[in-house]
């Protein structure tokens, strides 16, 4: 598969449009977004059918925690994007440190989410409690698995950066990994209001 897709649009000015990362990653992202779309719409339709049940279920969730989860993920996304920018400027070592910062910020998300899961499970609000919690666990659990995979990818990228494996003309793999992480962010910005905010 090609490493980067470039199209020449106009020969006079602003000549190239560039799709970062590997083309295969973009198809993977489209597939992932399709799966998440089905889950998000299922949640919304179920809420429309049982509004009171979803209102009651949401009382057990803390929107402040949801906000902290959001900020930790978005901050991690910022560090990953900055790391990519540093590598493009031949600052691979600085990129490795920024990827480490992305990893730490994402770890805050994992820590907060595990706390929330633990609190709900200890309160007897497991997957079988009612429709709200069944969909809550499936939707956020599926996203959580993606976050964990993202941590593995960020760790790998940080180590490869530290080894100097990426540079200005050779960072397609890094871009693909970072794109995956932004996809996790993209899903969360729709998941967060639907699960935590929209009563």
């Amino acid at each position, binding site marked *: 598969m090609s490493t980067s897709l470039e199209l020449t649009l106009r020969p006079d000015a602003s000549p190239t449009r560039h799709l*970062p990362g590997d083309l295969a990653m973009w198809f993977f*992202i489209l597939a992932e977004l399709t799966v998440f779309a089905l889950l998000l719409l299922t949640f919304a339709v179920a809420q429309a*059918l049982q509004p009171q049940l979803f209102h009651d279920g949401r009382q057990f969730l803390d929107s402040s925690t949801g906000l902290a989860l*959001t900020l930790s993920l978005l901050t991690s996304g910022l560090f990953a994007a900055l790391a990519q920018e540093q590598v493009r400027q031949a600052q691979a070592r600085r990129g490795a440190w920024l990827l480490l910062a992305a990893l730490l910020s994402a770890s805050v998300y994992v820590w907060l989410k595990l706390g929330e899961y633990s609190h709900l499970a200890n309160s007897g609000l497991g997957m079988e409690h009612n429709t709200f919690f069944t969909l809550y666990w499936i939707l956020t659990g599926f996203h959580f698995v993606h976050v964990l995979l993202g941590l593995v990818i960020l760790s790998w990228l940080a180590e490869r950066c530290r080894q100097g494996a990426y540079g200005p003309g050779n960072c397609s793999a890094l871009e693909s990994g970072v794109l995956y992480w932004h996809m996790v*962010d993209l899903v969360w*910005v729709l998941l967060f*209001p639907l699960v935590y905010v*929209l009563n």
Partner: protein
Amino acid sequence: MSASTTLIACWLGLAVLSFASVQLGSAGATLLMVCAVLLAALGKAWLIADGFMELRHAPPMWRWLILSWPVVMAAGVLLALSVSL
């Protein structure tokens, strides 16, 4: 504006919209509030797609393909929730 400054500006926008959506959500459960929260989510999705994912420099097909996802999601959620409001 350098690329790093653009990214930090995107993050600031994302943080402000996140705070705003929580505030809007706690203000009530009207259709207007749902619309406002979903608009904030759309703004955040746009900042991630065009800013972090660099789709503003990508071929238009890919840019619109990714940007259409949050629009379809927000429209679907709004349609579903408007039934119960």
